């Protein structure tokens, strides 16, 4: 029960173990723990950041989709307008063309009517002379009655 010199060796051995633990044990384990804590903190912060970024990106995507929809609607609107314009123009062109064709035809008709009248006038003079000759029984000198005939033709 009484301590003997063993205590010196025990004390020194104890101190040696303390020194070894202090030098080669404790700092390594502590460093590992602290490194891990830091890594966990960083990881959590990164996750938070990523979440915020995702939210941001979602908002941006929604915005883009909205914009794209608006643009598409605008384009469709414009296309409608253009189509209407094209149809209107085509209508106007068609009307114009029709009027032009009608006018040309009218002119032609008028010309033909004039020609026919001219021809008829000539024939009327001839017929009138022939008819008068038959009635009178003798040949009328066309030259002698030229003035009369011309007057007749003009009257027709």
């Amino acid at each position, binding site marked *: *029960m*009484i*301590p*003997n*010199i*063993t*205590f*010196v*060796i*025990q*004390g*020194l*051995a*104890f*101190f*040696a*173990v*303390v020194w*070894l*633990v*202090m030098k*080669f*044990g*404790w*700092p*390594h*384990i*502590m*460093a*590992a*723990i602290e*490194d*891990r804590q830091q*890594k966990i903190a960083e990881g959590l912060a990164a996750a938070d950041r990523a979440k915020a970024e995702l939210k941001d990106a979602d908002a941006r995507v929604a915005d883009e989709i909205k914009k794209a929809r608006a643009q598409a609607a605008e384009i469709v609107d414009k296309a409608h307008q253009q189509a209407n314009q094209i149809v209107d123009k085509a209508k106007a062109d068609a009307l114009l063309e029709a009027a032009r064709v009608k006018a040309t035809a009218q002119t032609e008709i008028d010309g033909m009517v004039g020609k026919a009248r001219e021809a008829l006038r000539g024939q009327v003079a001839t017929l009138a002379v022939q008819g008068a000759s038959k009635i009178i029984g003798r040949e009328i000198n066309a030259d002698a009655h030229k003035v009369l005939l011309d007057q007749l033709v003009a009257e027709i």
Partner: protein
Amino acid sequence: MLQAQAAEHESAGGMTEYIGHHLTHLRWPAQDGFWTLNLDTLFFTFVVCAAFLALFLGVARRAKVANPGKVQSFLEMVVVFVDGAVKETFHGKSKLIAPLSITIFGLVFFMNFLDMLPVDLLPGLWMRGHELAGHNPAHAYLRIVPTADLSTTLGMALTVFLLIQYFGLKHKGPAVFFGEMFTAPFHAHGTVGKIVLAPINFLLRLIEEAVRPVSLSLRLFGNMYAGELIFILIAVMTLDATLTHFSTYLLGIGQFIAGFAWTAFHILVITLQAFIFMMLTIVYLSMAAERH
């Protein structure tokens, strides 16, 4: 069984001989005296230190930041626990105090834990070995719990004592450290008062410092010695028992219950004593670093 054989060899002894044999160290030289070495204490201390260092330094060397293993996780738990206990008590910065604390806790716990081995296991084998080697097993002494040897606890307590002095000197500087020996805890304002109080202060300081290693070492030693003694007394219940006696069976049951109960209780004691030694060391070192 083995103790029965041993008792047969030592026909004179019986119970007293058995207990006395269990409480005798393996000494070199074989007589008691100040210059005697307790070889069993030294050997088992060496084994415990080697095991502790192998575990702690081995894990520390291969400490992984990501994916720590089971052993590392367990050790880290202990490290964080000790670190928390240190930070609660000591608010300065020190590279020494936390490793010192965990070493105390680990070593004292492991040394105490040897008390959990059956009280006759290693001493019985040791005697058997002696017998087989042709020596007298009655002289084959072995005590396996280093902390049940006052030399161990005193050695540790004195190391702690020296570290306290070193710590105080380092944190306060020599002027304050030596000055406080004579000016605290009683403060005086006049020169005369200071001179009068100086010896009283110094005496108080001496007592205060001397009491610490004594109380540290005796507390641990007393607990472990008493624990070991009770294990021996429980073992004595069936000493020299024979199967033909009815009392053997009654005592056998009693021995089992008592042994189980005391072992279970002792698990608490060994842990608590290791913790107390550690906490007191932290407190003493913190006090040494504070100015009065």
